[in-house]
């Protein structure tokens, strides 16, 4: 059933840098959350080692799971610049395929946060008149992101559809 979410064409994927950067962010965030959880468990059970140990095991298992999953999720991500629309697909359990005609784009945003800037990455977000379109391509190399933005804007201007 993969063809349902990946119709034929030239699909672009996110690079290894994206996978690594998302794994590292996920690891850091989940470890911080785990520490919070352990401290909470320590206080609530007033230092009962059985409970704290159980919480620690759960936290580590969860962190490992998230780190593996986020990598696979990034690998599942793909986008295709079609003739008239941009296709975006992603998801492991919940798969989705979004089609945004170039003519519907109002603007294209490139954003970077302090962490993704360290990796030289940027997100590209397509804005349509619907706030539910939610068309975001995460973790592209900054130069690629800028190129994609200019390309999409040019296509959008050429094919603009009336609102």
């Amino acid at each position, binding site marked *: *059933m993969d*063809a*349902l*979410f990946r*119709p034929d064409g030239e699909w672009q994927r996110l690079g290894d840098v994206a996978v690594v950067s998302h794994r590292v962010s996920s690891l850091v965030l989940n470890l911080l959350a785990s520490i919070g959880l352990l401290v909470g468990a320590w206080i609530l059970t007033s230092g009962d080692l059985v409970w704290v140990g159980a919480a620690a095991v759960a936290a580590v298992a969860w962190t490992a799971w998230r780190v593996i999953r986020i990598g696979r999720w990034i690998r599942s991500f793909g986008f295709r610049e079609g003739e*008239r*629309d941009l*296709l975006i697909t992603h998801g492991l*359990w*919940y*798969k*989705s*395929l*979004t*089609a*945004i*005609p170039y*003519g*519907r784009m109002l603007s294209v945003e490139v954003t970077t946060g302090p962490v993704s800037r360290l990796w030289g990455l940027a997100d590209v977000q397509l804005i*349509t*008149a*619907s*706030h*539910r*379109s939610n*068309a975001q391509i995460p973790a592209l190399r900054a130069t690629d992101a800028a190129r994609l933005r200019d390309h999409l804007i040019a296509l959008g201007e*050429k*094919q*603009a*559809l*009336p*609102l």
Partner: protein
Amino acid sequence: MIDPPLDGVQAPEPAPAHSADPAAVPPPAALPEPKRTERPHPLTPLIRGWVVSLALIIGLGREILGWFTESRPLPPLQLLLGGIGGIAVIAVLVGLASWLATRFVIDADELRIESGILLRKSQRIAFDKVTSIDVLQPLAARIFALAELEIDIGSSERVKLRYLTRARSYSLRDYLLSRAHSHQAELVQAEDPGLRLGDLSAEDEVLVQIPPQRLLVGAVTSNEFIGLLITIIITVTAAAVVSPYFGGPVLVLALGVSAISGIGGFVVRRLTGQFNFTLSSRPAGLRISRGLTSLTSQSLPPRRIQLVRLSQSLWWRRFGWYRAEIDVLGMGMRNEEDTHASVSSVLLPVADHAQMRLVLARIWPEADWESIQLHPAPFRARWLHPVAGPFLGLGHDGLLVVSRHGWLERRWDLVPHARIQSVRIDQGPISRKLGLADLAFHTAGSRLHPHAYGLDANHVLERQDELIMLAQAHRPDITLASATGPAVPADQPGPEALRADQAEATISATE
């Protein structure tokens, strides 16, 4: 009734607003004369104080009812009345101060509103940014023949001018509306239309009028009403069972009273909010007027309608009645309950089949949703959608996408291709096992989310290109009857020109 003189005219000479065409006589730039500014009507603080006191009395009344059921001693009456009176006086004083601080200018050059006691605010609005104008008449203001002017400039907060005389409100609305259409207009003194239950003029062609009996029957056969009734029956029964051990009969009584007031309130809200619901057609578009205690009328340019959702409660299926809701681009849409004097999303509260078709034909003249062949969801979709399963379906023609869904309330989402911003295919883990897929259509509206569930994944795969292309408009405008040809080449008329053309038709006004 005659327009009372407006207070707070600063300029010494009266300078009537409708004296000259502003296009013909440009204002002398060299002499910065003191602007003629206006204040809202002097009764404003009184009305706002009254509104505050009313809210207070209702709030306190609820509290006191609560005391009765808890059998607590009441505070002395003098204290209560004194408290209410004191707060009312304070409210009037605050209202007076804010009235003194509020001034506005609406003339050929500018629309400017100054307000605020401590934080002075001067707001200047570009005429062409005005997207809709409402004249609201809440009950308290209505008594004094006053009205509130609400200006929507597309931001989250609406600009309010309250309260003005009704005639002044209407003339300002007409003036701002024509300025928003970038015409040079003159400010004409409008006649006070007087106290009316409807809002119809000679150019209106009434399409649908919903009699109150239909509203009443519609309200008591709606799913909301039945749900309310079932909840009440369960709670009261439970209370009756528990009461011998806990609380006694007072508990049942208290619950019963609040239940009856709740259910009565629901019916009364539906009735008064939609009272005398009239949908009429004007050259500029459709117009809805409704309301018993406060008359609301809103105009509805068909081009702004993003989608129509028809729905039918359990009982309405038998009567063949439909409710039609719309999602509109950029209008400060408020709650669904459409009871307050505000813009609402209800196109038809309770309509029969013929009325529904008539109105849809006015919005999208060439589209006929009932002739569209729907592909039903496969039998295995009932594992995921046990009740809705047989009803689910999706179909489309050259103009509309129709999705059928809903279990207690049957719904038809009608979305024109030209309004779809993007399309998404979804599949969760269970759907994948069953070979199903869902579709979502993203529109510019914010309230209704059209989607289609439980479709056959193979079918979706086969028609994938077609479905993805649904978001591509085949025709620039579905709201026009005149066929301009099936596909306008995207580069020839210039899409920007098209957008600019349409900008005007998307301005709406409400009175």
